């Protein structure tokens, strides 16, 4: 069971959270092709290694945030708030 450092509440057991799929998935323009739109809807990277994803602290503060996690080792490299890119020093951990 992962120990996830919620940027608002601090480290908590995974059972308090809900997984929300990959982060930073760019939604194409609404007038883009069907092909581009269906790729957005259905194609996921399922990366082996460092991966950015969304989590919801459902049994805690109720907030969504980003987790940068290595899917091989489960090491959590960084957590950062919604709206942040996670690239710069703006991160909260």
């Amino acid at each position, binding site marked *: 069971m992962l*120990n996830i450092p919620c940027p608002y509440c601090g480290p908590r057991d995974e059972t308090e959270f809900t997984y929300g799929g990959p982060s930073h998935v760019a939604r194409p323009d609404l007038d883009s092709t069907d092909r581009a739109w269906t790729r957005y809807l259905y194609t996921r990277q399922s990366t082996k290694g460092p991966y950015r994803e969304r989590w*919801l602290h459902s049994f805690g503060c109720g907030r969504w945030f980003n987790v940068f996690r290595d899917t091989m080792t489960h090491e959590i490299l960084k957590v950062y708030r919604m709206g942040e890119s996670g690239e710069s020093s703006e991160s909260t951990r």
Partner: protein
Amino acid sequence: MSRPGPYRLKLAADAAPVEFRFDGREVCGIEGDTVASALLANGIRVVSRSFKFHRPRGIFSAGYEEPNALVQLHSGEYSIPCARATLIPLNAGLEVSSEAGWPNVSFDALRIIDFVHGAFAAGFYNKTFLYPSWRVYEPIIRKLAGFGRAPTRPDPERYETRHAHCDVLVIGGGTPGIAAARAAAADGRRVILVEQDGSFGGDIGQLLNCPNVRVLPRTAAVAYYDHDLVTLAETVTGGQSTHRPRERLWMVRAGRVVLATGCIEQPLIFSNNDRPGIMLAGAALKFLRRHSIAPGREVVVATNNDSAYIAARELRRAGVNIVALVDSRESTPDELVKEMRALEIGMHTHSLPIDSHGFSSLKGVTIGDLGSGMAVSSRQNLACDALLVSGGWSPTLHMFAQAGGKLKFSENARTFVPVAPHPSIEIVGSAGEPPAGTLGKRVSPVGDTARQWVDLKHDVTVSDIELAVRENFTAVEHIKRYTTLGMSVDQGKVGQAPGIEVIARTLGRRPSELGHTTFRPPFVPVTLGTMVGRNVGDLYAPYRRSPFYALQASAGALYEDFGEWQRPAVFPHAGETREQAMHREVKRVRNGVGLYDASPLGKIELIGPDALEFADRFYINNIMTLKVGRARYGIMLRETGIIFDDGTVVVLDKDRVLLTTTSSGAGRVAQWLEEWRQCEWPELRVVVLPVTDQWATVALTGQHARAILERLKPECDLSNAAFPHLSFRAANLLGSEARIYRVSFSGELTYEINVPANEGLKLWAALLEEGRSYGIGPFGVDALLHMRMEKGFLHVGADTDGTTVPDDVGFGKPAAAKQSHYIGKRSLSLPEHVRPDRLQLVGLSGVGTAALLVGSHLRLPGNEEPTDGWITSAGSLSADGAPIAMAMLRAGRNQMNKFVTVHDAGRNVTNARVVAPVFYDPSGARMNA
């Protein structure tokens, strides 16, 4: 009373006798004994039978690694299988039985199998019981196998789960573990120290008084999960206590883990190395030191390393006759030779046991001089009743491996050692550094390999490994599975290292090239009771119940599970079937008035200046145009365009919107709204507030609804002109604030009255009272779902599935007409979603009286497709009326008035006519009345 044991060398004057039962027979031990030590003290050699051959087996170790002495504790519903006798403290009256053997463990008739053992090689079951099917044989074979018996009645014991955090978790209560715990405690760390045994290998008095230290005896660390979560299984009472739990599962999030887990002694592999009386040398030493017990009268010690000399020395000094010390090494340290000479113990160097003698217990051992190479140059028989063996020591690194630490076989230590440190784990004591020195041979080069056991519990011999290799298995993981090596209850803790050496020898490779099998949790057997803790029975998945639960139960409700809710299906009268009751309730509502508990309906409030704008983005229906006080039916989509949920949108005020959802969808929808609010549209000024449980909701339904509600003087104009269908009024009802919605799922005039949850019962009673002269009564979910089907109202999740888009169910027009963007809109124009042959919602009218059943497949005339759709909802117009149904049918709207064949799981074929999905009041006059 019997004496507390002829094999006990000394007995303290104040030793208190403890009587217990082993296989129905009275046995006497003393206080402080384990079951194993008491059995040994009494000379009870045979404690179990082996799994395949029903060979007699005795106590082999003194700890958690025990492969043989697995016993059944207690009886009946209190029974625990696979308890390790070496760890069970003796209690007066304890009931212990062996797990196999018929008629009993000392004389097992199935020993016959042992005499035809050649037939039972690896893969025997897979190869033999093929025809007609393994299932025919499995129950018989399972019964024959020497495993414990699961209790057949519910376990009356209580189990608990606890969560804990610590800075340092120390696993192992020996000297190094205690030292590590002390050091961490002195640094002010929060420490948990666990030990599987009841006693510690040093003084823990000081630790017991430290407020930052928790000491847990009789507790096993069983699993190591991600991010240093370690689970512990604590034996609290061991069973049959009225007020304390039997076992407790700890889930410990550790900052750092110290492994002070020591080593597991490995056996020697030779013919008949499984006879009762053969025991690990370290185990014999522990029984001597702790319980003053001798393993026998005439003892041979055989070893490939220094450690067994300690057992020989201490037993000799305690007055036990050591017949010989057999050492497989070519050269033995001089000081040990001198010491043995001084103790007058005869030594055989460069020798190894190659066979043992006896039947149910040991009578002697044949040792062989190893000479050079694979041969044995000379043999010698030694008479003895106990043989203590030591094949070296393997560090207990199961937790390290479970944590993801890598292990490799060291050709020097002849066991698995860490390749690199683990960032969270520190290994101390002998687990980090097994006893040094060169090891001698531990596998006999001669003898019948079919009688050389590598895995005692699962009866795996050297010949099984040889067979697996002959059959081309080369990977350790495959050989393990084919031979079942190390796969029994004890998980092959004893014999793992020599097992790898045997595999390597057979494959003609080096052990270090092979790798090891995966170390999986749990480290030792854990009862299912400990795993589930309190989450059993009513607490397994607690029901949600509305404020009217007890009231409706007393009114005769037949409750049924609807998702997590328990709701009344019907209120049957005596002698009525569920269907008859449903039709009676429908008739009451259609012809008069009924009362329905709609509290489980999901309710979510949106509050803030942008509430309406926010809501509009979720529905295919236009929400922006909705005025304060009005309501509208709405369908919500996923981004894929698939229908997700439905309900009504009510504008309570200019900055307050109420959404209702399906009862089971309330949680999902609230989370969905939150995700969009937080992640996509943080600029919208709105909060999402689930309020389902805040309100008790009663639907007053039927043509007399208005008259009855007026009698409660709600202080609002109930006339149809002032309060029409699909609108909302706040009112004061019976002294509390009420929200009244005119929405209808039944097709009748309906007021859905919401009052604060704790005011619900008062409202219900008042409505029943005022409605009595109108023949009011409660109705259940069955009647409501039937009425909505007659009206053709959608039941999301029943009529729709994970492929349904709005146009499939007749909502293509509003979805296309809405100008503003909403979630899922872009996907509705995808080619797959506009195909003309999609399944579409239709009504079916049965031909004749044959019932239409949900799930039946439909076929259009002249079509060769396997299916053209299926029935999603079904019933009949009255108790003996015509069958009707709703169905998803290929290009259904173009098939009106055609006949389809209806296939009920291949059993019956009937016909039905395709009609519009409305069977009752198509104009809607009744609900708009």
